[in-house]
């Protein structure tokens, strides 16, 4: 490892000199800021970071990071990132993407990257709209949404991004929100620490084309009743008075009020992000309003060998076992004759 300098890095080291071109008020700003805050804490030299993105408002992110960056083409960032990580496993690779970029055109690359468990971090800015192309519905827009391309209301049933990721055997799956800086930073740091593909859905407000998309859970007044923070090893509890929680009943999840019907805190489910099978995390990913509060936090974090390390191990092992290749021998392999 080459260390570029001995002084500890600061947020400023990660800010590029390019003017930021997001609308004033866009949720992207706080995510940028959170990332710039987290990276200096990670003990990775600046030159090892690579930010890879597709196309979209969110995908302009790399330009604002004073790191290596690759603004690629629409939907393909996971494929580029996979190539980068394979070519140099020593890099810290980040994929920045939007709901359209990752889940519409890029859905296939995303799920393949997740199943392979390439060691990199995906931040999916979900604003439930195509921002850059000025407001068409996306695969996470709600059924019936009226947009430029759906004047009569969209008839698309939306994806649940976390369910998609879990269906693809993702090893790290989390959700956070643009306007919760502390949670955002914490989640990003967790993602960075995870070895393998870390998939983080970030609810992000597009105040121009889809303002208030998440206000039904983030509005200050209702927030505590409409969301639940998943914390590993802690009971699943929520509510302004922390008097509600999740129970496992009749083979399914249920919201219960502590103190009512004899429910005590001890009855509540305890969140375990490390369960070997993804079924519980999947079940949590299905919690939707109005029946349930919206979970945020780390749904799943398990270990599985990463694609890049397995690939590298195979390379190394072959080299060890067979010795470095000799070009002369390779050229002269097989049936050879002399004239």
């Amino acid at each position: 490892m080459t260390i570029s300098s001995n002084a500890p890095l600061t947020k400023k080291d990660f800010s590029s000199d390019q003017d930021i071109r997001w609308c004033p008020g866009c949720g992207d700003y706080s995510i940028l800021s959170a990332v710039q805050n987290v990276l200096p804490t990670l003990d990775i030299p600046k030159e090892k970071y690579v930010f890879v993105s597709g196309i979209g408002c969110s995908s302009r992110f790399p330009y604002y990071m004073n790191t290596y960056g690759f603004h690629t083409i629409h939907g393909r960032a996971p494929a580029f990132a996979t190539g980068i990580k394979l070519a140099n496993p020593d890099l810290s690779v980040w994929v920045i993407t939007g709901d359209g970029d990752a889940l519409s055109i890029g859905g296939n690359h995303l799920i393949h990257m997740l199943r392979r468990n390439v060691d990199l971090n995906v931040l999916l800015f979900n604003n439930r709209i195509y921002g850059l192309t000025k407001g068409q519905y996306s695969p996470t827009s709600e059924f019936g949404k009226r947009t430029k391309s759906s004047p009569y209301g969209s008839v698309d049933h939306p994806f649940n991004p976390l369910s998609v990721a879990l269906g693809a055997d993702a090893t790290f799956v989390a959700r956070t929100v643009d306007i919760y800086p502390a949670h955002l930073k914490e989640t990003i740091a967790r993602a960075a620490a995870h070895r393998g593909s870390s998939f983080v859905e970030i609810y992000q407000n597009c105040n121009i084309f889809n303002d208030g998309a998440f206000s039904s859970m983030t509005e200050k007044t209702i927030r505590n009743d409409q969301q639940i923070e998943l914390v590993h090893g802690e009971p699943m509890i929520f509510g302004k008075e922390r008097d509600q929680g999740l129970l496992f009943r009749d083979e399914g999840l249920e919201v219960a009020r502590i103190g009512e019907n004899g429910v005590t805190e001890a009855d509540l489910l305890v969140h375990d992000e490390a369960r070997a099978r993804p079924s519980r995390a999947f079940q949590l990913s299905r919690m939707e309003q109005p029946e349930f509060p919206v979970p945020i936090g780390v749904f799943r974090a398990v270990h599985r060998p990463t694609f890049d390390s397995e690939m590298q191990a195979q390379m190394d092992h072959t080299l060890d076992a067979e010795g470095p290749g000799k070009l002369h021998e390779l050229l002269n392999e097989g049936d050879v004759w002399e004239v």
Partner: protein
Amino acid sequence: MSTRTEIKHPAPQQVDRVVVRFAGDSGDGMQVTGNQFTNTAAFAGNDVSTFPDFPAEIRAPAGSLPGVSGFQLNFASHDIHTPGDSPDVLVAMNPAALQVNLKDLPLNGLLIVNEDNFGEKNLTMAGYQTNPLEDGSLDGYRTIKVPLTTLTRRALESVDMPRKQVDRCKNFFALGIMYYLYNRPTAPTESFLKRYFAKRPELVEANLLALRGGIAYCEAARIFQTTYEVAKAEFPPGRYRNINGNSALALGLVAASQQASTGILMASYPITPASDVLHALSRHKRFGVMTFQAEDEISAICAAIGGAYAGKLGITATSGPGMALKSEALGLAVAVELPLVVIDVQRGGPSTGLPTKTEQADLFQALWGRNSEAPIPIIAAATPGDCFWTAIEAVRLAIKYMTPVILLSDGYVANGAEPWLIPSVEDLPRIDVKYRTDPENFHPYERDTDTLARPWAIPGTPGLEHRIGGLEKQNVTGHVNYDGENHEMMVRLRDQRVRNIENDIADAEVNGPDRGKALIVAWGSTYGPIQSALQTLRADGVEVSHVHLRHLNPMPKNLGDILQRFEQIIVPELNLGQLTTLLRARYLVDAKVLSKVQGMPFKASEIVDAVRQLGSQS
């Protein structure tokens, strides 16, 4: 069992060139048989050229017409360039093979058939109303009927093996017959069998018994009045091996990456006839070659570009439909100016087309199959062995000019084989890689004054942090920039950088007089048939010259001058006239296409005829 069999035979007659075609059902092992004969001939010092003709991507019912698999090879005591226009000997393992192939056998040609397979069912499947072995329809040929299945079973009586497996050995029985006929040694095949079935000695034995059974049968049954011998060809001295195009490509890529010390990230998605390049490279981990089988062709090229960004030589290989899918990412590769080699092993189209057949119709796609002005250097391989050198050239250009390079091969070159003079490592071209490391005055789009290449500055290098992408960039700084004049400058710089390559490649060479009546201009795999045609034409005193282009974009600087010096220009292409269009547009010469789009290479005679016609017109 391991002793060498000496073949006894009537005093052989010397011939200087033989074309043999093996044809049978897909399950009959015709490709192995053909390859064995090829290796043996090459070992014996002949020049060889082969043409495997697989059934299409699908599995056809046994005995059916679409299930016929063929392998033609030409071996000679002189320089040859094609697998031959038509076979001297046809080995037909069943009626379907006969049905499909007989039309190519000249009258009085030698025909060897497995008569055991001419039962009613097989005849019907092959579309025969009556048995051609009996109805006189083969009267024009020197037909030899051999009960191959029966004889093979008999030869293998001593082996304890299921009947099905015994029957699978009949191709080696047939091979034995051919070895007898052409006085070939069995040693190379013996050692092949031992290597190939190292873990299944019973199969070694069985096949050897079949092979020797074939020879013994010829001796005993005296089915041939004469046998033949083809003397050694004259080759430049050196070490040789047989090689097909896809293997040569893989070797060339490994060699180039070793010369450049970059390592390789090869990302591909399987597709006929390019998959073998992936297969071959996946074995070369010891050479720092990492292969990634991606989920599709788009992912493959994107990963390869990612690999190039991170400092490895990025490679992807595909065929027509996969190439189409890479169009968008190729545009990005042009915009970000990274070294990448994209291999297109062309096949018949459009769309899925004729997946196992050859064609040269992706030239336009390679040149222009992207949005906007996105120039990419293009080179093409002329012969199987040439694939090696073309691969090295592709890598050289990609790295030196920081650009994607498209390498065009095709099904004919990819699967065809020829003896290849193994180069010594010292003779390979050097390829210098200069990763940028100095942060002083670093600008990601500052260009080398000669090549106009930008620096290769890879993640992990302290102080060079920078951003690249597909939006238009300001020259030098690489910052996103939408200014109109900058855009025009960048468009022209990208164009000029590719054009500059013309100063770095050899002049086109004219084979033949450097001015005159007729010039053949061509590219890619038409090379072989054209060489053969030239031999014939010149033997007949017809004067014609030939320029074969390896570099299609840019073309050699002197090409325009050459074209002006000829009255007529003819361009044989396996398409409707793509190079022809380029020559006409660029040089305003009335080049005429000689077009063939039949999934098959040219026959030398087709080129001979076309050139003769030219003569008669002028």
